[in-house]
């Protein structure tokens, strides 16, 4: 087999088990998007253009709550900020690649693709010197990871859209989106700093509920961030 293709397939294979966790989120997003009044083609397009699960669920939830474009944009912009951390971590491994490769792999840089691909980069050293031994093909592995996740995300979005269209409105199926947030929140709150951020953000969201366009949500998230950072710093000082 072509070694590039073998590397690509290895990436697909190692990414595959994570798809079980990704599929329900894609379906939920599709179901929630329809319930929020998003036309199906726009919901599917967003899965290709935005390609970030948590942000897409948040966009849907905020649209359903009647939020304006500015608060939705700001919240999604904040939520996706973490991709810059992945970008900096990947940069040294991708620096030698031509621009078209870097553009493609940047587009495919999601939580789950990063998590699998970075392990490959850390586990196998790059080939020594130019022309020595075998060439560095690990970007094909990364492409396999990214492509697998991309395909799952598009297909599960489509499945959610198909399923959502057949569910009667009285079933409150859109409530599954905040339930997802509760599940993720509970996992994140096992850390003390996460607790402070979540508690302050929740209380502030209620206190600032009267602000127009749901801008209170953005303010609440920012207050939660400061509380989280402050709690972390406090915990570190106490630990000293």
């Amino acid at each position, binding site marked *: 087999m072509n070694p590039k293709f073998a590397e690509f397939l290895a990436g697909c294979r190692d990414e595959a088990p994570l798809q079980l966790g990704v599929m329900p989120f894609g379906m939920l997003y599709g179901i929630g998007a329809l319930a929020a009044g998003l036309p199906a083609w726009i919901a599917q397009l967003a899965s290709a253009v935005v390609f970030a699960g948590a942000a897409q669920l948040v966009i849907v939830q905020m649209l359903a709550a009647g939020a304006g474009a500015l608060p939705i944009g700001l919240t999604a912009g904040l939520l996706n900020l973490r991709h810059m951390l992945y*970008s900096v971590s990947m940069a040294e491994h991708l620096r030698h690649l031509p621009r078209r490769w870097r553009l493609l792999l940047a587009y495919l840089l999601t939580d789950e693709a990063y998590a699998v691909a970075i392990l490959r980069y850390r586990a196998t050293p790059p080939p020594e010197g130019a022309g020595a031994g075998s060439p560095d093909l690990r970007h094909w592995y990364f492409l396999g990871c990214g492509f697998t996740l991309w395909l799952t995300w598009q297909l599960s979005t489509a499945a959610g859209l198909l399923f959502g269209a057949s569910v009667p409105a009285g079933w409150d199926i859109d409530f599954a989106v*905040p339930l997802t947030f509760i*599940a993720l929140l509970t996992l994140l709150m096992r850390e003390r700093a996460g607790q402070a951020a979540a508690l302050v*953000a929740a209380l502030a969201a209620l206190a600032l509920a009267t602000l127009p366009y749901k801008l209170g949500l953005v303010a609440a998230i*920012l207050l*939660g961030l400061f509380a989280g950072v402050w709690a972390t710093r406090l915990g570190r000082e106490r630990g000293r």
Partner: protein
Amino acid sequence: MSLEAMLALLAAIGIVTFLYRYAMIGLFAKRSLPAWLHALCRHIAPASFAALTASELFVHGGEVVLALAAPKPWAALVAALVAWRTGNVLATIGAGMAALYLFKNLF
């Protein structure tokens, strides 16, 4: 929101998200990010999810409504307990939806 506004919003979010991903790989030569950005990123998800959940459960039409007979907050509480015990997202959604149907018929 109009169709045009929605498309523009999604395009803007898509572009910004791509720029985050491409920033360090393709745009800047800088190899590190400030420590405060790392610290901030850890809290963005819990803060966002908490604010959205609180708002979904207790804000209706721009007003805070704390009603004891509303089924959704109670269903959310059941879901939170299941999430706490199992750490399983699907079980949490299942329990929350089941509780919602139950409480809607009780209240």
